[in-house]
């Protein structure tokens, strides 16, 4: 599903974020990216989404070399990739329902699809009763569920999560991880960058550890360290 071949990424100012990274992530896998801040976890996620492009090496997503994708095709790549973040990135002026519906509307989904898909996904994340609330009226955990609903409503092949539990207490984090696990069991590939030791240790999934832009460990059913 995702293949990195010798990927190097250098940001402006000669910061080497990734140095010759190679890895393959199969369809339906659940992968943790761990490592200290600045080790290159977020860069890997941003490369998969083509928010950044690699300076050397090749990246394949769903069988396509994404460097060779013309810019007008990038949005169609992103429709196959859902993203969630530490800060949720919800629109403050829209209700829970509208936030999720927005993701379908802006890719031109017809109204009847929006009307059936949004309530279904809100039920999946357990927020059907909060559909008309604004994000600020929700707890952090609930806001992250809205963001997961928005990322997953279009049934992407891949879900990228960048420190999704970074702002949440341990109990709430467990709830979020259960939800991501459920999504993973539907066949969606999940790649999650995290600092949360206890989550990695309890989940017992594949762990890729990065340090200074290199993969120093790649372990099936691994632990944090």
């Amino acid at each position, binding site marked *: 599903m995702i293949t990195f071949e010798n990927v190097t990424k250098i940001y402006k100012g000669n910061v080497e974020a990734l140095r010759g990274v190679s890895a393959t992530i199969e369809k339906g896998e659940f992968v943790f990216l761990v490592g200290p801040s600045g080790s290159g976890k977020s860069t890997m996620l941003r490369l998969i*989404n083509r928010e950044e492009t690699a300076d050397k090496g090749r990246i394949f997503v769903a069988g396509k070399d994404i460097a060779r994708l013309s*810019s*007008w095709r*990038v*949005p*169609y*790549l*992103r*429709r*196959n*990739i859902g*993203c969630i973040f530490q800060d949720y*990135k919800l*629109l*403050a002026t829209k209700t829970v329902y509208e936030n999720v519906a*927005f*993701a379908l*509307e*802006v*890719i*031109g989904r*017809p*109204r009847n699809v929006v009307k059936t898909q949004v309530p279904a996904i809100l039920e999946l994340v357990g927020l059907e009763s909060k559909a008309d609330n604004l994000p600020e009226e929700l707890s952090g955990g609930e806001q992250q569920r809205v963001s997961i609903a*928005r*990322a997953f409503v*279009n049934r992407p092949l891949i879900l990228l999560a960048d420190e999704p539990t970074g702002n949440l207490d341990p109990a709430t984090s467990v709830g979020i991880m259960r939800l991501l696990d459920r999504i993973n069991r539907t066949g969606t590939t999940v790649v999650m960058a995290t600092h949360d030791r206890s989550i990695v240790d309890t989940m017992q999934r594949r762990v890729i550890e990065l340090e200074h832009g290199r993969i120093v460990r790649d372990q099936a059913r691994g632990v944090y360290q």
Partner: protein
Amino acid sequence: MKLDYIARETFTNLRRNVTLTIAAIMTVAVSLALFGSTLLLNQGVDNVSARWKDGITLIAFLKSDITDEQRDAIETFIDEHPEVERWRYVDREESHAEAMRLFDRNEAMKQRLEANPELVPDSYRLTPTADDVDLMASMGEELAAMPGVLQVTDERESVQTVVGVSEFAQRAMLVVGIGLLVAALLLILNAIRMAMYARRREIEVMKLVGATNWFIRVPFMLEGIVQGLIGAIFALGAVFALDRFMQRAAQHEDYRAIMEGFVATSGELWFTVVVVLVLGVVIGAAGSGWALSRFLKV
């Protein structure tokens, strides 16, 4: 769904930035008003100087019952005068066509001309070698006294005044108009930039979930185009006002002699209208397109 989304977004953007939007619209309006007026005046000058083109300053209109001998005598007389650089005979057909053009929007006059093509006489049109007003004036008097000549008009000074003043005014208006056009472009650029800043979170999410670039861009493009178009519509008010003023002046007793040809035909007026509208749309599209290409990274 898509259409009402786009309309809603465009309208919200315009309302959110109301002060900058008004500033942009007003600048477009003033600059295009100057531009459109210049264009209209320019066509007026073209029309008036078509009559006096090639520096013709003396016109001898002929009686309709003029004989060939009288004609020969006039031509010999003109040829004998070295201060005439060249001359031209304008027959009835050409005079009629010219008059129809000058009175394009004066229906009463047009009907009279059509009913009676003889109304506009043949004429000799003379161009002097030097700028000797006196010499031409005395020659004009002599010509007027010759048999077969109906009337001699010497419009050198008045024509040059009108053409000179209007050329100066046109140049000044064009310079100011172009300056303001650039200002309008920059204001639209900034209005769109502000709108994009206000919506940066939405834009971020749209990109994330895979909205196409065009889908993200269209509301902003339309916002700029609407600003340009509204400005152009205001500018047209000024253009029509100037046109009415020119029409009135052309019919006013005191100025008729000078202003008669100084009108734009209806075709020329509509040409100006189209140019102003198109320019408004182009400025709006260029301003927002520039903002999008600079500040909206894929």
